[in-house]
């Protein structure tokens, strides 16, 4: 695949940090090819649990902290950001129909040729599954000849058994800096995780330890007419 063949990439995930863990390297590849990328971020991760040790956040200050982290990560990745204003952990209770219409409008207005989201049912967090399902529905509602390509992220424990291997795999061996910097922008989410990765790794180097874990980004290219969600 030639990254520059695309006109605009739209990423739909619900939480600040999903974009960095799930697709930062892929976003980097598209940006290097001159393709604009827009992140439609569902929530501010208001219900996150990591308050730091020592504390840097509490339940009430966390949303603003994560908003700033999100903006920083999008700056690192040089992508546009739209915050959609849903609330963490509640997206599955919103109307899928309304979300799909809203997402469809963004996709069409931005002229997206590629949509990246979570694979509903295989993305563990209820917000991931709900936003993925609404994004699938949005793509499905677009006329077939104008439909963007759809890539979905799956990471539930059963995803390999049920979906097989991802058919798009992006290797970040030569462009890992941006992904690591994007992840590190999300200090409230990444700090503990990165030090744990380092502790469990044979390497004593953060870059190497993170590369071991995050070298590849995998996606399932999906034909929405062929899947149930």
């Amino acid at each position: 695949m030639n990254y520059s063949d695309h006109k605009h990439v739209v990423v739909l995930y619900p939480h600040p940090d999903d974009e960095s863990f799930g697709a930062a390297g892929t976003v980097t590849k598209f940006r290097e090819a001159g393709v604009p990328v827009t992140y439609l971020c569902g929530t501010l991760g208001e219900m996150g649990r990591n308050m730091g040790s020592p504390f840097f956040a509490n339940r009430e200050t966390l949303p603003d902290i994560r908003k700033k982290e999100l903006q920083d990560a999008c700056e690192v990745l040089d992508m546009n950001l739209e915050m959609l204003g849903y609330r963490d952990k509640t997206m599955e209770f919103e109307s899928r129909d309304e979300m799909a219409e809203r997402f469809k409008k963004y996709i069409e207005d931005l002229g997206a040729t590629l949509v990246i989201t979570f694979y509903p049912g295989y993305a563990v967090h209820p917000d991931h599954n709900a936003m993925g399902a609404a994004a699938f529905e949005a793509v499905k509602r677009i006329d077939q000849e104008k439909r963007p390509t759809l890539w979905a992220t799956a990471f539930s424990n059963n995803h390999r058994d049920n979906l097989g291997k991802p058919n798009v795999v992006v290797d970040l061996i030569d462009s890992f800096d941006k992904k690591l910097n994007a992840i590190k922008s999300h200090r409230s989410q990444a700090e503990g995780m990165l030090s744990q990765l380092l502790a469990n790794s044979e390497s004593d180097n953060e870059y190497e330890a993170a590369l071991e874990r995050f070298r590849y980004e995998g996606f399932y290219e999906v034909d929405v007419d062929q899947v149930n969600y």
Partner: protein
Amino acid sequence: MDSIKIEEVQKYIDEFANQPVYVHLETTNGAYASHFNANAYNVGAYIRNAHLTYKQGKIVEHDDSYRVGLKHDIGWIYAEGLTDFEVTDTGQLLIAGHDREGRLMVTLEISTEPFSY
């Protein structure tokens, strides 16, 4: 947040008594508990901006953590496992329990104005 000082928290609980207040009450073990451990269960609940008036409230110490009970006309508000507290610039009382890694496990918050939603 700082470690709970029982007299101080009791003083704030008393100040909020007998007037309409907004309460945020939450407990969680995260959205990934059963993803990382097949034997674990995902459990959690929260109420944001319950609007009520309690007539008495008390904080009690038990083995390095605290419980709070607030009695209102037709029932109770209850939280256990609380370890830390803070009073914000706008006068909200935040009480929470965290694990060793600083992850929130339970929180009880009281304010005279609604919490942001």
